[in-house]
């Protein structure tokens, strides 16, 4: 239950971190908030030769506005996100989702970018990035590139990140003021991984849905973008939405699995109900479930 030996490095710039990763030739692991990596080290499921601690790189921290987007430095702590006025104003559903990430004590160290880069399929942050159309900025000694969140995840804990790459920013496009937010998750206890969850945003213009971003978590090997439901919602009259049909389309994109917490069928059944109920509540409709 003690980590295996490693060399510890704490670079103070993105360039120095990239250089360390490149020189390590795949033998390095990045330490962000450590709230997932430290258990993996303690259990010796992860045994890097070099641990590159990116906590001392100022350029990776903080939340800023640029043009019509909000940029979150990956090393922004989850607790800072919860207290951010910028996020409260521009990304309210992200703040809602953050309240469900781990526990108070782990949010004090855990980072938004760490969760996004890790790619736990039942985690809230990756699905939020996918739903809202975030773009992930990646750096290495080879240069920088930008990848859409819905093209970033390949499988459980598997992303497009190469071993020499580092996430240096997450850019969330603006959703108009007053947009509708959707968030719901079912977990056995507060702080547990979600059995079923989804997050999303909608904009309504003249009574019709003008833009929709929806993603599931805990419902497949990666966060799952509900593409069919998004497409079906566009242009729809809010007053005449067929909730059951939209929920069916939303579920159709998922690929849940059986595990010792719940069966795939349970996840689909609960997901369908939670989805239609949350959509109905968010749109302010009153019919019984």
């Amino acid at each position, binding site marked *: 239950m003690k980590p295996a030996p490693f060399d510890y*490095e704490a670079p103070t710039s993105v360039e120095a971190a990239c250089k360390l990763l490149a020189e390590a030739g795949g033998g390095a692991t990045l330490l962000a908030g450590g709230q997932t990596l*430290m258990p993996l080290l303690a259990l010796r499921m992860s045994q890097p030769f070099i641990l590159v*601690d990116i906590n001392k790189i100022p350029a990776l921290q903080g939340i800023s506005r640029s043009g019509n987007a909000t940029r979150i430095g990956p090393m922004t702590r989850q607790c800072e996100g919860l207290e951010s006025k910028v996020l409260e104003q521009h990304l309210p559903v992200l703040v809602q989702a953050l309240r469900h990430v781990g526990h*108070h*004590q*782990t949010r004090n*160290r855990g980072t938004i970018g760490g969760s996004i880069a890790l790619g736990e399929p039942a985690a809230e942050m990756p699905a939020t990035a996918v739903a809202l159309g975030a773009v992930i900025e990646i750096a290495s000694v080879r240069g920088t590139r930008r990848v859409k969140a819905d093209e970033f995840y390949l499988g459980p804990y598997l992303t497009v990140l190469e071993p020499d790459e580092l996430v240096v920013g997450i850019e969330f496009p603006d959703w108009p003021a007053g947009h509708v937010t959707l968030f719901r998750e079912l977990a056995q206890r507060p702080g547990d991984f979600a059995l079923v969850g989804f997050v999303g945003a909608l904009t309504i213009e003249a009574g019709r849905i003008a833009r929709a971003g929806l993603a599931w978590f805990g419902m497949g090997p990666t966060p799952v973008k509900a593409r069919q439901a998004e497409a079906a919602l566009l242009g729809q009259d809010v007053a005449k939405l067929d909730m059951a049909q939209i929920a069916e389309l939303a579920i159709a994109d998922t690929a849940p699995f059986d595990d010792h917490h719940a069966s795939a069928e349970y996840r689909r059944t609960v997901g369908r109900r939670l989805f239609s109920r949350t959509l109905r509540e968010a749109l302010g409709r009153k019919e019984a479930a």
Partner: protein
Amino acid sequence: MSTHSIELTINGRREVGNVEGRMTLCDFLRIDAGYTGVHVGCEHGVCGACTVIVDGKAVRSCLMLAVQADGAQVTTAEGLAAADGSLHPVQQALRDEHALQCGFCTPGVLMTLAALTEGAQKPSEEALIGALSGHICRCTGYQGLRRAVRRLGGEP
């Protein structure tokens, strides 16, 4: 395997150490610095027993490396009571409400509640109860903790 010299403040006292990169903060506090009030339960971030205050925030000391605490202000359960032995308000509340049984989880619970009630504006009882979800009490002595929290919380 790298070693690092670190300097930090623990309960107001300056401490120096020479640590391997892999040493966790909880092991440094207990073994090198002698603060055995830091209880180590699961060692992988689940139980909350090792919670300490680092730079004003309650964190799990098993999920942080000792080398990362270089330059930090750390408070452990030993640092709560006043020099004359009078109890910290959180300790007093837990004592008055019989909010501990075997006591193993207690230091971690104390540090979470102490960090949250430090400021002038006290968090709501609901927020404090929410933060206690990060602690597991194997005696299941949660009702006493709830009573203690009721005394510590601010206006909702």
